[in-house]
């Protein structure tokens, strides 16, 4: 057991820190740090800067831009990125479909899709959930039927995050209606500009638009866009969701948000021991979570995720929510001024607190709800 990073890892950290804080545009990072909304351009710009330096998809196979880093280095990379306010590489590209294509795709698909996926030339969306298939994903009903070389797709996807920006969507579709639930599912890549694809943004409770419904009406998809084997979709979905879970706890971003909140609400905190104790308690819980992330990273070197990794999503989302809730409380009645413009007398940080609080309620629902996470812990780890 040793607390310090090795000299090499320290140098690596320094390199990451320098890169992120000097190469990624300051104004984008500032928007992240202040909790402002990012444009599509911001996200794409940042990802391109990263990709140009081979820092967008370090966990991919090396021939496709991966770096062969240790889990610890990946952790440091991710930590420093959040610390500097760099928007992380688009998850749909970097963490979801990229690894799936790299692992299950054929050579032609790899060559065609991986480079523009790493550079965000293609913006991907995820087409998994359906109105009647949320946590119970295997109940999905969108169908793809063979017609010559093509697949003809019909159905509806929902909760498609940032689908309004997307160029392509990776979908789970039912290709064998006779087979049992999980068996008859395949993964299909669909160009969203094809006729019959329709996107409807869904307004969320914070007034923002970040998820969408996507309809497919007789969409003809060329046959070479099936990834892996026909009816092998469930295997790929599990592979993808497993990756999603591990990378999803934005511990450092939450730490950064809490530290920023301390600065912004310093006057209120100065003489309020109860709010100070909430800050201190959250700082300690975040420390425990960060150390758990480090421990998991350090022990996952053989590729098998550490059992404690389920803790990261579960507790990470709770803490993200708790910090956002504290922010509303520290803002007081200023938190009501959510719709005010910059001519408001209420500081911008106070005005932004409640929409963020409401928005972050999703953190324990999306990406595998916390109930699903508890189920995983109970069954897979505790054997219950």
């Amino acid at each position, binding site marked *: 057991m040793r607390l310090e990073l090795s000299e090499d890892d320290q140098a690596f950290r320094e390199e990451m820190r320098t890169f992120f804080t000097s190469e990624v545009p300051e104004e984008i990072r500032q928007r992240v740090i202040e909790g402002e909304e990012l444009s599509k351009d911001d996200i794409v710009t940042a990802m391109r800067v990263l990709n140009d330096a081979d820092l967008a998809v370090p966990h991919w196979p090396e021939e496709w831009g991966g770096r062969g880093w240790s889990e610890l280095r990946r952790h440091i990379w991710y930590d420093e990125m959040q610390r500097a306010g760099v928007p992380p590489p688009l998850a749909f590209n970097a963490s979801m479909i990229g690894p799936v294509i790299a692992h299950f795709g054929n050579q032609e698909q790899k060559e065609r899709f991986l480079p523009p996926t790493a550079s965000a030339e293609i913006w991907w969306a995820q087409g998994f959930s359906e109105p009647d298939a949320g946590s119970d994903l295997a109940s999905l009903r969108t169908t793809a039927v063979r017609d010559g070389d093509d697949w003809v797709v019909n159905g509806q996807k929902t909760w498609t995050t940032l689908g309004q920006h997307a160029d392509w969507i990776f979908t789970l579709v039912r290709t064998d209606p006779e087979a049992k639930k999980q068996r008859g599912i395949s993964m299909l890549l669909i160009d969203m500009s094809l006729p019959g694809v329709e996107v409807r943004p*869904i307004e969320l409770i914070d007034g923002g638009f970040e998820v969408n419904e996507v309809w497919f009406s007789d969409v003809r998809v060329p046959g070479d866009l099936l990834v892996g084997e026909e009816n092998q979709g469930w295997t790929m979905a599990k592979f993808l969701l497993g990756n999603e879970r591990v990378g999803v706890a934005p511990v450092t971003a939450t730490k950064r948000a809490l530290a920023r909140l301390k600065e912004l609400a310093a006057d209120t905190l100065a003489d309020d021991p109860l709010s100070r104790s909430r800050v201190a308690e959250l700082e300690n819980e975040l420390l425990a979570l960060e150390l758990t992330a480090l421990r998991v990273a350090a022990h996952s070197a053989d590729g098998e995720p550490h059992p404690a990794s389920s803790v990261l999503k579960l507790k990470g989302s709770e803490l993200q929510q708790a910090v956002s809730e504290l922010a509303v409380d520290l803002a007081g*009645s*200023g938190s009501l001024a959510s719709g*005010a413009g910059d001519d*408001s*007398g209420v500081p911008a940080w106070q005005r932004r607190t409640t929409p963020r609080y409401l928005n972050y*309620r999703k953190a324990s629902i999306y990406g595998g709800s916390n109930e699903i996470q508890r189920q995983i812990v109970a069954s897979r780890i505790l054997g219950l």
Partner: protein
Amino acid sequence: MDFSYDDEQVALRDAVRGLVGKTYADHDHRRSVTAEDPGHDEQLWARMAEMGLLGLPFAEADGGVGAGPVEIGIVCQELGRVAAPEPYLAAVVLAGGLVAACGTDQQRADVIGPLAEGEGRPALAHDEPASPVTASQDGDAWTLSGTKEPVLHGGSASVLVVTAALPEGGTGAFLVDPADATVTAYPVYDGSRAARVDLDATPATPLGEAGRDLSSSIATVLDLGRVMAANQALGAMRTALSATTDYLKSRKQFGVTLNTFQDLTFRAADMYVSLELTQSMVDWATMVVATGDAEALADAATRVGLQASRGGRHVGQEAIQLHGGIAMTAEYSVGSLVAQLTLLDHLLGDGGVHLRRLADRIDDHGLVEPLG
């Protein structure tokens, strides 16, 4: 000691429930009225006036109905049940309440009468984002300077009731014509409206006797507002729970309805516990209002504020979580309930603020005695 409504109160509740329930039965209607100014349904407001709800707390001499806090609480609960964006709390309870408590005969006639008839709505401008608004006197003429924000539904107010620091110390209240001030309106996250009000040597009429310190009256009206906010929160909590149990009974996942999952049903049971505890505290605090004891009200308002904050967050957050993704969408009703709960929680001091006050005072009593 009696926690039950009498027949007239039951009739009032049913009537209000019928009216606002019908108006907002379709959640789309709420979405469309909040999408445009003034952020609520003016037709409903007119019907509420017809029904006498807007004049409920005020003396008959002032054009009101002279009802008690239980009746006002009933209206607030029913508005909360549908997360109605109507500015009842802001205009009737707070602004109207302060005018009724402190205004001259003429001022009461000028403000309360039209309010009760649905012809004009006062707004209370009390919160200050930075430094206090100050009042200056020049002979009989008074002016105010400074910024008030957020002023709930300040953009559609017929008259602003503005609190301000008096030249001789203490806090006064003034009537200001919105046309004389700079009013910048905007939507609040729950669909209602608020505004920034800038005053720059703006002419103002002292409410009641000029120059008199109204601090304690203002405090009492704010305490009344806390109790009524808790009533409204209680209504929203009740619907949030019933929407959740309905959803658990009907929504299928993994081939079965969600109420098959014990974890979810137990958490709904815990929501019920929070709801019932809040109901008890709300009923009690509302009855304390009726005693007319300002000190007892201050205590009760703090206590019910803490309970409603804790209970409202618990029920609201769990309502979203137990629903899952659907509750994150503006198309579904639960989000509006949670947004309104959040607003009510932060309007007049949240649970943490109330807890600090209570923590300071634990030495003032042995046991807490609700019946006195």
